[in-house]
């Protein structure tokens, strides 16, 4: 019936269509396989084996399979870590190696897992279900797992697992001391001892000579200047190096070198990076008051200095760096020399009189008096007057001592 045209095409095109059919089948195999190929399938198989070995086949059958997650609606976090870390809530794996170790009970009592999830404390990428992505050790994920391995990479001198304390302090930032967060506690003591607040505002309280540090932890890693930093280029590494020697990273910095050792610098860097707004509901924040209030002694001393004979120096801001022992004024930072004997001290240091020096200051004081504390000639006259009075008292004291 049908007259076929003498077409040359079927001979070539039919095999081609067949090849494409094969390609389509191949593509199905490939995308099915790629969807099956996830690390968690392997780990779940291994865990079932471990359970079977320890507790028998019956309990091994009860091990949940498939992707598991802890959904914390309050935090907007879906943490799928337990897909592989299946032993976290099992008794009997306390001594096992990760990923099959039982989670220590004590931290979970105050931080129930259904309220906090995993990544709120540990870091990492809760959405992911493959090792590298989940541990956040991939590009474009800025919250890596705060593990001992990472601590080792930074050669932490103290506790190698201390980095996780950064996340403790997001909620516990107003605590004077947080149980279990030794590095953060050390850093908080250093902040008090070294008088960081003399220059920096921290938790909305403190001086304005240095940058406000209340939210410095959310500064983006790209926003630091790494040109003078060798080694790892991360915000954490930058802070450690900067705390050890500020001028080495920021040449025109007026921040003094406090001679922190590695452990102190690392602890302070952790504290600094933990200072970022907590995106958690208020109920999650630790019970301490929402600002770290000074102690009664601190308030009393400040009051005494403000009203005493050295009040002028406190008000003007000299106290940030200088103590004036004769007036009972104690600088929290004690970066500069005591001003009690400034009259003779300036002469011996610079070979100039105090009047001359204040009119035309040099060195650090040139920076401070041109940028941070601007004095009118009248105020400078007051300063000289007060310094001479202090020196008179100082000489009297020295004379008494000699006698």
């Amino acid at each position, binding site marked *: 019936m049908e007259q076929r045209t003498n077409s040359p095409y079927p001979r070539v095109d039919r095999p081609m269509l067949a090849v494409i*059919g094969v390609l389509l089948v191949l593509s199905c195999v490939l995308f099915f396989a790629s969807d099956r190929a996830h690390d968690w399938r392997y780990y779940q198989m291994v865990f079932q084996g471990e359970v079977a070995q320890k507790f028998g086949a019956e309990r091994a059958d009860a091990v949940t399979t498939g992707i598991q997650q802890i959904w914390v609606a309050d935090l907007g976090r879906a943490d799928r870590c337990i897909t592989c870390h299946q032993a976290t809530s099992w008794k009997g794996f306390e001594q096992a190696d990760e990923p099959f170790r039982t989670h220590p009970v004590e931290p979970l009592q105050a931080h129930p897992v259904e309220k906090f999830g995993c990544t709120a404390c540990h870091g990492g990428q809760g959405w992911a279900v493959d090792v590298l992505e989940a541990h956040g050790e991939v590009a474009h994920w800025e919250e890596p797992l705060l593990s001992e391995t990472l601590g080792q990479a930074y050669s932490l001198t103290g506790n190698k697992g201390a980095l996780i304390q950064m996340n403790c302090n997001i909620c516990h930032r107003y605590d004077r001391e947080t149980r279990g967060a030794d590095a953060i506690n050390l850093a908080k003591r250093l902040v008090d001892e070294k008088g960081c607040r003399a220059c920096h505002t921290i938790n909305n309280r403190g001086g304005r000579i240095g940058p406000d540090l209340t939210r410095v932890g959310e500064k983006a890693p790209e926003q630091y200047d790494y040109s003078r930093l060798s080694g790892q280029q991360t915000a954490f590494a930058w802070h450690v190096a900067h705390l050890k020697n500020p001028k080495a990273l920021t040449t025109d910095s007026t921040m003094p070198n406090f001679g922190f050792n590695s452990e102190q610098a690392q602890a302070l860097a952790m504290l600094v990076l933990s200072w970022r707004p907590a995106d958690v509901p208020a109920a999650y924040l630790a019970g301490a008051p929402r600002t770290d209030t000074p102690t009664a002694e601190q308030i009393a001393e400040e009051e005494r200095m403000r009203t005493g004979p050295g009040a002028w120096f406190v008000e003007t801001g000299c106290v940030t760096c200088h103590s004036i022992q004769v007036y009972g004024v104690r600088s929290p930072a004690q970066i500069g020399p005591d001003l009690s004997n400034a009259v003779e001290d300036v002469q011996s240091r610079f070979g100039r009189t105090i009047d001359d020096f204040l009119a035309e200051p040099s060195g650090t004081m040139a920076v401070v008096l041109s940028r941070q504390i601007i004095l009118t000639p009248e105020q400078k006259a007051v300063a000289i007057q007060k310094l001479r009075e202090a020196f008179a008292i100082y000489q009297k004291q020295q004379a008494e001592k000699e006698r």
Partner: protein
Amino acid sequence: MSLLTRVLKFRSAGKAGPAGVEPEEAPGVRPRLFWSLWPRSDRDAGDAVTSNFLLHWFPAKVSKSSMAWSYSFWLGTITAALFLLLTLSGLPLLFLYVPSVERAYQSVKDIEYVITFGRWLRAVHRVAAHAMVITVVLHLARVFFTGAYKNGIARNQQRQWNWVIGVVMLLLTLFLSFTGYLLPWDQLAFWAVTVGTNIASAIPGIGPTVRELLIGGRAIEQATLIRFYVLHIFFLPAGVGVLFAYHMWRVRKDGGLARADREEIAETPRDVAASPTKTYTLLGVARGTSPTVTARSLEAPGTSVNAVPDLMRRAMIATLGTIAVISILSVFIASPLEEPANALITPNPAKAPWYFLWLQEIVTDTTIHLGSFTINGAFIGGVVLPGLLIGLLTVWPWIDKSPRQVTGDWFPRERRTQNLVFIAVLVGILLLTYIGMELRGPYWEWFWPWEAWPTVPGRI
């Protein structure tokens, strides 16, 4: 007798009923939405042909030269296949993606990590989208090089208008891709759209208004996301769909590919005596006396073949081949997803989508500071130049005065100059795109391929 015919015969015999009454026959076409797989009469069987859309998409016969892979490279078919694939892969994504600034990034993460086949689906959608931009441009280049926007011999040809429709579809394709770029709401998306929409604000006078209209405010925010989303999933694809249908219809009305015209011009059509054996079969379902027609030389068995199955098979090869290739590539090409969008942190460098990078490159190259004067590069590179190119492209069929005999011919001598200019512009655009993609690093500084970019610092 084909298998289908036999089956149909069997069915119609069974359905004849005890009284043996044939269904009523009436002249004229019966408007029916679907044709029956189990026709009860020859009439019903014939309807299978007359009301079959696919059989009317293509002509009954098609010239061998139009079939050739090396003439059209089937780029239009491949582009249509990509559009189909984009629609199909977009449908499941519609159920999974949440167009809100709070949830969008998270929903894409879920698609990537835990949705069954999610990563592959997203990769298919992305790879096909990039491929479609490429094939649309290649298709346009093919039509230009062969002068296929020119009218040949048949009456009422409007090829120039189909070319204009094509240019509009190119722009729609670019905008479709651009609107899709924003949806993951990551840094890459946010800043690419920032760069792209900032170029729009360089239009003199109305620029800021255009940008505001585009992004639904003065900053890229929720209003932008929902605007881009609705454009991306409905209005732009619908626009492409409607124009595509018209594009196809026009191809039929204009007598198929320009190549076919060329043949008719080349050999003067002569009447061939109607041969009693020359019949058209209608899918093998029509029996009895078939219409016998006077064949022209073009339709002689030597120069043309039946659209069914030869053209259909090739269309199938192009379509399924495209789907297979994209599907396999998508298993291996991971889709990027950077940090969540952050208006406060500008990645360095911030780049537009790759198909706009040649514009971004021109914008930076034409931004010149002379003392306190600044020549605004965004106006030249973002408005004047692309506007001029698109404008020229649109009206080119009316500017091209080459003889109609060269319609459907690759690189004819008569069109040498314009083809060379077109190649020069295309190569220039490709070169600038390559520079923008590969050779521009932080602060848009020049980095040779062997020079490493500065490392991007991390937080911890």
